[in-house]
């Protein structure tokens, strides 16, 4: 189970990659392993605004449909439309397959998010 450095994580198995005043959000390797083959992704629309912890979409596999929550607040400026036609990319490359790009209003992004180490520990705890 891969955990990349340089990203922030949430307890719901999303990752955040800050890029200045923007951020990319996706789901982790742990999440895609649990889901199995992804068959469909439901994404929000550009312009949608969310609070931290709001559901922003759904990732569907044959056996489950998981809500995706945004770990940070912000406004959607881009969605990754390629995933609609190729949802399997989430399985192949979870950290390269961002779901949404947000313009963030969260001043301090680190607050409330987990570091790669903390996320690794969290996954171990959960699996018990």
């Amino acid at each position, binding site marked *: 189970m891969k955990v990349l450095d340089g990203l922030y994580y949430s307890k719901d198995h999303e990752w955040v990659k800050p890029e200045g005043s923007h951020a990319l959000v996706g789901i982790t390797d742990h999440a895609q392993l649990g889901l199995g083959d992804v068959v*469909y992704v*439901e994404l929000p629309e550009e312009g949608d605004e969310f609070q931290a912890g709001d559901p922003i979409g759904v990732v*569907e*596999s*044959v*056996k*489950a*449909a998981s*809500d995706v929550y945004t770990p940070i607040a912000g406004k959607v400026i881009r969605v990754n439309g390629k995933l609609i036609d190729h949802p399997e990319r989430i399985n192949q490359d979870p950290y390269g397959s961002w779901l949404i790009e947000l313009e963030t209003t969260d001043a301090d992004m680190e607050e409330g998010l987990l570091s790669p180490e903390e996320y690794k520990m969290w996954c171990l705890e959960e699996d018990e």
Partner: protein
Amino acid sequence: MFPYLPATPEDETKILEKLGLHSAEDVFEDIPPSIRLQKDPNLERPKSELEVERILKDLCSRNLDAERAVIFLGAGSYDHYIPSTVRYVTGRSEFSTSYTPYQPEVSQGTLQAIFEYQSMICAITGMDVSNASLYDGASAAAEAARMATNRTRRRQILVSETVHPETRKVLSTFLGCHGIACEVLPVKSGVTDMEMLEEKVSRETAGVILQNPNFFGFFEDIGSAEKIIHNKKGLLILSVDPISLGLFKTPGEWGADIAIGEGQSLGNPMSFGGPYLGFLACTKSLMRKMPGRIVGQTRDTEGKRGFVSTLQTREQHIRREKATSNICSNESLNALAASVYLATMGKEGLKEVARQCYDKAHYAASILTASGKYRLLYDHPFFMEFPVVGAPSDERIHEALLREGILGGYAFQKDYPQLGHGILYCVTEKRTKQEIHNLQRILEGME
């Protein structure tokens, strides 16, 4: 000693021995004595098959059914021809005693039959995708309304007063749970008031539900309605009579987003109101929002074509409280009947049935109103039902008809008090010229 209970006293003894118990009572030890029944439920003693048959025949003798009476009653449930192929297929217990196809490898019969049903519903409605059926036309309306509010994120539904009263009642019960406003568009001259429709449709409207032909049998101005609704980016939900689609313009051709309706007319008997089936079909973009089961085609590991339940993750057994709906069973056997009906009647047959319904209804309307004693409530294009008004009261008409073994049409004043008394007659392909003339004779003879 019951035919459905194979276990003999010896079998029970064998089981108890294996369990290390003395008596069968012991398996119920977890049930607190305070709630154990002290005496048997007060039911009549068990009956043999012959006795049960006698009871049933007696009950049947006190029901006037459509084989013994001539029926001109429609209003949501119809006496159509059901080919003998339908009863044969639904009688096959491989279909009737199987269950929801959770293990597709041993349920290919059911799965393929549903796939064909879905295909045929798309064929007749002109829509892109269909589900495996819902409980009835009314619940299909409720589900379609939910799809619209879900997709548009708006919280108002408009429904025409010319949509069947039963559908509207069920709709309001279910929408009420979620605080979705359900407003009724009034009937005007027998059809939906288009001016009111234009006035009421706004950017708050998730969708509009219209019925075509409507409750009175009249064709609605769907073309105008479609423009109005789509202009404000709401959804057009069209409830249709599937038999009418043998001849008339389909929801797909009208540009509807969701097509729904009652599928009873397709190979299912009237059965005192149920079981029926609701069909629901929609455009491709709404596919993942459809409730209920959906069967998809795929291949197995050896490349052979096969069928599976697909898009299941939206359903209750996986999504639980976030499911698109709580629906679990569908109306599989009724959907099977519908498929067999459509396969048997085929492209030409459905057209012919629709044609005969249309012609016979128009013939009846013309001769019932010939003398001037009765007239049509409105002079408007209709399919196979038409509302008739005249001097004699509804009750007296019904009595007179019943005396001669005829079940008259529906007295609609109960549901549309503003229209006064009058009767909605329905003439299907099963009615004959002689039956129609007989009806006319009795009606003419009334004071």
